[in-house]
Structure formats: C-alpha cells, structure tokens
C-alpha cells in the first residue's frame, strides 16, 4: 500500500532538500549543527523514499513508468510543467544521487568540522541535492533546463565555497561561464524543439520525432542539445572547468564533480536518446567527442601531481567513456558505468579528502607517502576504489567498463574499442601511480598523519562495499539485470564476450604493474623519463595549453572587443550626443552675436526681414497665379 502510494509522493524526494535549503537559509543559519542535522535527516528521508521508489519500479518485471505533472508556467502556445517522470532510468539515478549525497553529507560532518560556513555549506548541499533530484525526475526539457542551471549554480557556490581564496573564486567563475557556453546551445536546441514541435514534454516529443528522423533540422537540434552535456559533463572542448573545480571542498568534488552533477550530461543524453538516435551524424559526433575526451583526459592525468586533479582528469576520462558509450548506442552500458562510477569515484574523492584532511590541506602527492601505515581504512578503501576504476574483475568498474568496450567492439567501432582499451590501460597506470606515490612509496612525508574519524571512514567503507558489489547487477552473472530494466528504444544488447573481458582485465593489470615498476620499485626512473620526453611531458603537464589558449582568446577577442566597443560608445555614440549638444550651443552663441546692441542694426534686420517676406510672398502669389 505504502509502496503503491510512493510514486504519487515521489515529488517529496526533490522537495525535501529544497525545503531544507529554505529552512536553513531563512531560519537556521545561526545554528550550524542543527542545520547539518536537518540536512542529513532530510536527505536520508529522500534516500529511503528513493529506495522505496526503486523497489516499486524494479518490483515489476517490466519496470514501471509513472508520469505526473503540475502546471508551472503556461500561456497560449507555451507550457512548462514541473513534472515527475519515474521509470527505471530515473529510479537508478534517484538511488545513486540520494545515496551518494547522504554519504557525502555524513562525511562532511567530519571534513567540514569547525568551518565557519557550515550552515551555508549544508544549505548549498541541500539545494544541490534538490536540484539534482529535480533534474532527474523531470518529464520535460523546460524542467530539465531549470534544474540544469540550478545544479550549475550549486556547483558555482560550492566550488567558491572558500571564497576567500583567489583560486576558488576564479574556479567558480570559470565553471559557471564554461557551463553557460554549453547551456547556450542546449537552450537553442530546446527552443527549436518548442518552436517546431510545440511541446517540450518527453513523451509527446518522442511521439512526434520519428517523422523527422535524419532530417537536417533534427541533426541541428540534436547537436545543439549535445552542447549541454558537453558543458555539464565537461567534454572536450568545454572540459576546462572541471579540474579547476577541485578548489571546492573535497566532499563537494566527490558529490558534484564526480558522482552526480557531471553525470547529468550523460543522463540527459540517455533521457533524450529518442532524439539523438534519430540522427546518425550526431551519434558519431557524440561518440567521437566522448572517446577523444577519454583519451585526452587520461593522458593529462598521467603526469599531474595534485591528488584531486588526478582524480578530476580521471573523472573527465570516465565521463568521456560514458559519452562515448552513448554515442555508439551502448546506452545501457553508459548508464551502468555512470552508476558504478558514481560510487567508486566518490569513494576515491572521499578517500582523497580523508588524506587531505589528515595532512592539513596538502594535495601534492609527492608530499605524501606511506600513508598506509597511519591511515589503513582510508588506504584500503582507496585501493578498492582504484581497482574498481581500473577495471579489475570482479569489482564494479570492470563490469561496466567491459560493457562499454563490448558495445564498441560488437558494434563495429573498432577504433573506439582500441581507444577505450588504451584508456583503460592509462587509467590503471595513473591511478596506481597515485597510490604508490601517496600511500606506499618511500617518502615519509605522510607519516605524521592520522586516520580520519569514524564519521568519515564509515561512508568510505560503505562506498567501498558498494563499489565492490554494484557491478554485479549488470554483470552476466546476474543476467544483465540492469540492462533488463534500463533499456532504450533502438539500443542493441550484445552477448558477453570473454575475449573483450580478458583483454581489458589484462590491460588494466599491465597498467598497474607498470606503475608498480616505475613508482614503487623504481625500476624505471620517472624523473629521467620526464627529462627525456620533456616536450611531451610539458604538453601533458600543461594540459595541452588549452587553458592558455582560452585565456588568450578571451583576453584578445572578448575583452579586446569590449575595449573597442567601449571606446566606440564613449566617443562615437556619446560623442555624437555631445556633439549635437555642442552644435546646438555653438549655434546659440553664433546667433547671439547678432544682438550687438546697436539699435540701427536691429532696424536693419527688421527692414531686411520685411523685404525678404515681401519678396517671398510676392513670388508665392505670382507663381500661384501663373
């Protein structure tokens, strides 16, 4: 009974965090502890509700689709609802988001302990959770856009949470603006949909779209829509904000910039798959961009020294994986990877947070070392996360990544398959580079550290357990249960291929071994490598100089045009106004000197006036007569 009503009441899942935000913002910001407690309690309730929703949805063999909506903004010709669309896809996302959010919020109690902004931190966390959940349950593009922007706002606020730092302020700004560029295209796509189809509702669009399949306009629309995921999921070329976003508190990075928000782009592609898969060129574009990003980011991650940045590039790379999966039609695999990635990547980030916390905000891996002695829980959960990420069977990452590679392989995208496998190798390498340097290594800088409190380690353990187990729901061992529910029209399912599995596992192990050789055994001198391949190293270390390019472009084109236009405004437009005023004034002065005080010249003007009047009047009359 409760379970049946749960769908009607599922709106509470996003609503409760919003309520929390309002309560904290309006009344409770003076009591940070209370705010934190409220926030955690509310997200816990949301989590429970999500579990119940999941039970209902997956309790039915075919999966349940439930849709309801309330009018939000409407006028003749335009209607934007606030809707609730619950299907297996939503249910998975709800579960992932509420669970990670809950764990991160608990973890934050320890991580953010004593921070003066604790109340606002939890307020932001709540509004983020609310917006993200709102995005997930959306039944139309309007609603998605609304929450899309709101999660962007939360990301902005949380990246800039320590606003006293210049780097944080810059990173927050960068994140928002870069996302705006993506949203520009996304918004255009939505507008096209509205104008052409007259609706933004998913199911109505899904009914109308097929008639336009592969038409030029639809290709255009789908590419525009793809702008959104490119921004939000930090795909090349709009990836630049995500590494910088690591300026935020680490739990935030875990939740927003690893597990949930950045995956929203992938989720959007999945949700709007009925549009994308009608347009082959767009699908190719998506796959290419995703694959490229995966490789590109992984290569950068190879040489970074900041623990969070390594993880950030890893996130980029994995997002690229997911996007690629979407592009090659392996949506289920992509969503599966999204889910497992959410767990193990948040685990990794929280682990990193634990380290950073213990080392008093030290993030350079070369200034860590041998942490395993002092921080066993952190270390071993971190290793589990890294193994999962590297795709070592039977951890979750193995199953999901394998699905994607399988999709590429079986779908005939051999290039992408090879690329994916290469990335898997690199992933394993850089993750274990991190682990060997920071957690084992001979460096003893980390030895004054101490294990984090239970409030931080318990979420780590929970996530570690999930990271190990979550993969099984989609594994052939459980008959691809995940794929049974999370399906997409037109998507193909491929039978498990042992070769692909074996190759990827071996490749990952090879990566780990290489890292072991270089950084643990130091058989190969990494410093020498650095010097030998100086050019390549610098290129990678400086992230292909893309930030610099953008900075240069912005400085010269945007700010340059701004300067030029300012000059134009000041001297041409304002100048014209002032010139007209001056001419008026000057002519006044000129005329003024006709009043020279000489009475006879006044008389002369009068007579002249009479003569002119007389002549012109006579001319007028004569011409009228003639």
């Amino acid at each position, binding site marked *: 009974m409760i379970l049946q009503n749960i769908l009607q009441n599922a709106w509470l899942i996003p609503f409760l965090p919003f309520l929390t935000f309002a309560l904290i913002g309006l009344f409770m910001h003076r009591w940070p502890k209370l705010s934190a407690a409220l926030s955690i309690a509310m997200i816990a309730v949301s989590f429970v509700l999500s579990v119940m929703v999941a039970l209902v949805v997956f309790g039915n063999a075919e999966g349940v689709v439930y849709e309801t909506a309330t009018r939000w903004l409407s006028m003749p010709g335009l209607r934007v609802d606030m809707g609730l669309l619950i299907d297996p896809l939503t249910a998975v996302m709800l579960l992932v988001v509420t669970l990670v959010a809950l764990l991160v919020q608990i973890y934050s109690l320890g991580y953010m302990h004593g921070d003066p902004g604790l109340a606002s931190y939890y307020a932001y966390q709540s509004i983020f959770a609310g917006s993200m959940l709102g995005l997930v349950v959306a039944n139309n593009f309007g609603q998605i856009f609304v929450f899309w922007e709101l999660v962007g706002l939360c990301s902005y606020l949380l990246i800039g949470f320590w606003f006293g730092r210049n780097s944080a302020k810059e990173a927050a700004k960068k994140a928002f603006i870069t996302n705006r560029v993506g949203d520009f295209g996304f918004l255009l796509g939505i507008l096209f949909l509205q104008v052409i189809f007259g609706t933004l509702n998913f199911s109505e669009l899904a009914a109308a779209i097929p008639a336009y399949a592969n038409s030029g306009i639809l290709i255009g629309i789908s590419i525009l829509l793809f702008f959104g995921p490119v921004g939000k999921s930090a795909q090349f070329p709009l990836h630049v904000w995500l590494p910088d976003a690591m300026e935020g508190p680490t739990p935030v990075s875990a939740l927003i910039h690893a597990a949930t928000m950045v995956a929203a782009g992938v989720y959007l592609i999945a949700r709007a798959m009925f549009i994308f898969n009608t347009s082959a060129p767009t699908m190719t574009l998506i796959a290419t961009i995703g694959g490229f990003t995966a490789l590109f980011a992984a290569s950068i991650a190879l040489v970074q020294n900041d623990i969070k940045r390594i993880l950030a590039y890893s996130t980029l790379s994995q997002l690229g994986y997911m996007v690629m999966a979407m592009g090659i039609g392996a949506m289920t695999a992509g969503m599966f990877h999204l889910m497992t990635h959410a767990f193990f990547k948040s685990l990794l980030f929280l682990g990193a947070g634990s380290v950073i916390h213990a080392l008093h905000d030290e993030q350079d891996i070369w200034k860590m070392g041998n942490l395993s002695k002092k921080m066993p829980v952190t270390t071993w959960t971190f290793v589990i996360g890294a193994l999962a990420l590297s795709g070592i069977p039977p951890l979750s990452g193995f199953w999901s990544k394998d699905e994607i590679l399988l999709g590429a392989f079986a779908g005939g995208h051999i290039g992408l398959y090879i690329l994916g496998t290469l990335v898997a190798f690199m992933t394993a390498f850089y993750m274990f580079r991190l682990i060997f340097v920071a957690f084992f290594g001979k460096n003893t800088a980390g030895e004054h550290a101490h294990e984090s409190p239970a409030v931080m380690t318990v979420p780590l353990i929970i996530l570690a357990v999930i990271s190990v187990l979550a993969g099984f729901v989609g594994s052939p061992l459980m008959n691809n249960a995940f794929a049974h529910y999370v399906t997409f029209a037109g998507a193909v399912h491929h039978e498990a291929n042992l070769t692909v599995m074996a190759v990827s596992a071996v490749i990952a192990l090879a990566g780990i071994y290489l890292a072991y050789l270089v950084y643990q055994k130091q058989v190969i001198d990494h410093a020498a490598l650095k010097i030998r391949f100086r050019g390549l190293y610098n290129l990678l270390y400086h992230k292909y100089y893309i930030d610099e390019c953008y900075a240069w472009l912005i400085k010269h084109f945007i700010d340059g045009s701004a300067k030029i236009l300012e000059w134009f405004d000041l001297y041409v437009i304002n100048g014209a106004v002032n010139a007209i005023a001056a001419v*008026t004034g000057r002519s006044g002065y000129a*005329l*003024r000197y006709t*009043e020279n005080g000489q009475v006879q010249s006044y*008389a002369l003007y*009068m007579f002249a*006036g009479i003569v002119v009047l007389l002549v012109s009047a*006579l001319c007028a009359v004569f011409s009228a*007569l003639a």
Partner: protein
Amino acid sequence: MDYSLLATEILTAVIGLLVLVSGLVLPQRGREIVGKMSVLALLLVLIYTIFRFHVHQSFFGGIYLVDSYGSFFKILFLLAALLVMLSTGKYIERFRERSSEFYALMIFATLGMMIMACAGDLITVYLGLELMTVSFYILTAYLLNDERSAEAGLKYLILGAVSSAVMLFGVSLIYALSGTTVIGEIAAKINTQPALIAGIVMLLAGFAFKISAVPFHMWAPDIYQGAPIPVTTYLAVGSKAAGFAALVRIFMIALPLSQFNWTLMLAVLAALTIIIGNLIALTQKDVKRLLAYSSIAQAGYILAGLVAANAYGLKGVLFYAMLYVFSNTGAFAVATAVEVDTGSTDISSFAGLGNRSPLLAAVMTICMLSLAGIPPLAGFAGKFYLFSGAVQSGYLWLAFIGLIMSMISVYYYLQVAKVMYIGEEAKPNEKMEVGGVARFAMWICLLGTIFLGVYPAPLSNLAQTAIQLFM
C-alpha cells in the same frame, strides 16, 4: 448702443487719471496708498469684466467691439496688471517719489491693450497700440539713475516708432485697396494684388515687432534687460498678448485664407522665432535676458496657433496667452525679489535660492517648467492645443520644431534651477525676506500654473466661447 458696456475701459481710464492726479495732490507720505488703491480698483474692474464676459456689442459702426474675445483679453490684461503690481514688492522703492505715476502709466498701458483687443478698426488698433507703447517707452526708462534703463527706453522708442511707421504704411495700402479700415468690412472688398500683399506684410511686420517674432525680435532682449523688472514683466505678458489679440482678430476676420494663404508665411516666422529664441536663450547668463529670449520663443509657440487658424489653434493662442500671465509673471516675480535682495539678476545671484527661500525657488522652477511645456503644468496643456491645431492644419513640421525646441529649452530653464538648488550661495544661510504681498502674488502664479495644467477645462471653455466669432 449701450455705453455702459464700455464701463471697463472708461473705469480704467478714470482710475488711471485719478491715480495720476492723486500722485500730484497727495503728500509724499500718503502716496503709498496710491498703489493699494489702484490694485483694489483694478480688481473691482476685473470682477466687473468677468461678469460681463458674455456681452456682445458693436460700437460706432464697428470700429469698437465689445465681445467675449475682447473680454477674455481684458481679463487677461487686468489680471496681468494686478499680478505685476502685487509682485513688484519692494522694487517700487526704486521709483522713489515717482511711484504713483508708475501705477498711472501701468494703467494707461492696460487701457491701450484693452483698446487693441477690442478694436474693430485698424486705426483704433493703432491708437490703442500707441497708447500702450508710449506708456511703455516711459516705463522702460523709468529708472532714471540707471543708464541701461535709459538706453533701453531710447532703443525701444526708435524701433517702436519705426515699426509703427511700417505698420501704418501697410494699413494705408490696405485702405487704398479696400476703401475701408473697418476690420469686418475689409474681407469683402479685397482680392489678391501685389500691393495688398505688401500691405499685409507690412502690417504683419508691425505686429511681429510687438510680439517679438524673429526677425523683428531684436529689441526685446535689450529692452527686457534694461527696463525695471515689473515693466519687463508687463511688457512680456501684456504687450505681447495685446499684439496677439489684435493680430488674430485682423488676420482671422479681415484676411480670409481663401483670398491669400498667409499661414505659411506665419509658420516660417513661427519656426524661426522658436528656433532662434531658444537657441540664443541657451547661452544667457542673466536671468532677465534669458527670460527675454524665452519669451521670444514663447511668441513663436503662440504664433503656431494662429498658423493653425482653426479652433484648437486659436483656443491655444488664448489659452497660452492666459497661462503665460501666470507662469511668466511668477518667474519674473522671483527675479524681482532676487534683484531687490541681491541687486542683480545675474544667474549667480540666484545661487542657493533653494535654501534661502524654498518658495521662491519652487515658484521659479515650476513657472519656468510650465514655460517649457512640461506636464502637468499649464504650459503643456497650452502647447497641446497650439500644436494640435497646427497638426490639424497640416503643419506637422512646425509641431516637430516647436516640441523639440521646447524640450531643448528645458536646458536653460534647468540651468537656473540647478543654480538655485546646488549653486554656491552668495549669502549663505541667510533667509531671504519677501513681502507678504509679493508672496501672495507668487502663490497665485504658482497655483494658477498648476491648476491650469492639471485641470485646463474651465479656461479652455472660456477660450472656446471667446473664439466663437471666428468659427
């Protein structure tokens, strides 16, 4: 013929003579009551005239007319004279022992204006005009110790006499072609001939001089600046209105548009007047002179109503002439008070008026803005009538010029406001004392300006009645 209908004129003449005589017979001390007496007497005449507003009568074969049109202007002149006398305040002390003659001359000038407004014959117009003008010659030069006053008087006399001569020459030509000088009879007897055109142009030139239309305006700034301020005020308000009263009657009745379309000629004059008056006013630093140029521009606006030559336009002429009494007198009254207090009307002597006397600053600002035509002040309603008329007659361009220039005129009016409110004060923190009577006059101007702007209907109804004879 009911001569009692001429009571207004007769009474005014009698009052003028009495004031003149009483100035001679009363001892020095007693002369102060002369001013009060004349104000009171004129007030009674005004009330009487208002009650006889609807009376119509034609005298002496149409050479003198009593009608609503004339009465409207008579009311206007009396009101203006009263306001000017009231607002003179302490300025009267500058006339020393000659103050009673000042009142007498003012009253004679008023009489001259009345005659102009009611004249049914060109020669009657001329007589009224000369009565008015000669009084003004004397009044202009009334500050015997002030060189500029004398200069202004002489300039006015020379130019005034020349313009009278020109006008008379024009009258003689019209007389030659029509055989009559009665306004009502001319129309039937003329047709388009070059000599007639010459006559009309010269007649127009004479009136253009009186109303200070460009290029016959050159006297106005000098004379306005040199004359004692109350005289300037009356010159600007009364003399101009009288000029328009006669001009409208002559042109509307004697010169039918079907014979000779003089509207274009007037439109050009109006446009020039508006443009040049406003442009030169932009550069002025002396408030009196600034108001002089402003009043030139105002003449241009009023002329636009005559250009229209239809109900809205003519109503606008009357309406504007009346509101001009309030607004212009208000502004000049403040200038008078400032000159009494600081001895100058240079814009710098208005500095800090907003602090020293908020009422004066407010009156000045509001009256000036009314002149600029900013709603909800009277000037806006007036301009609306004038330019509606002009547009109705097809003179859209004139409306354009008029309205744009009137917005530009806000610049110089606001310059004064700016100085008053944020200027460096000449006499910091010193309250400015203004007599109760002058204050009363300013309040009337202020309230009149606002009332006519917010609720123009009563005045426009009066004007409607007054212009019936042209319709």
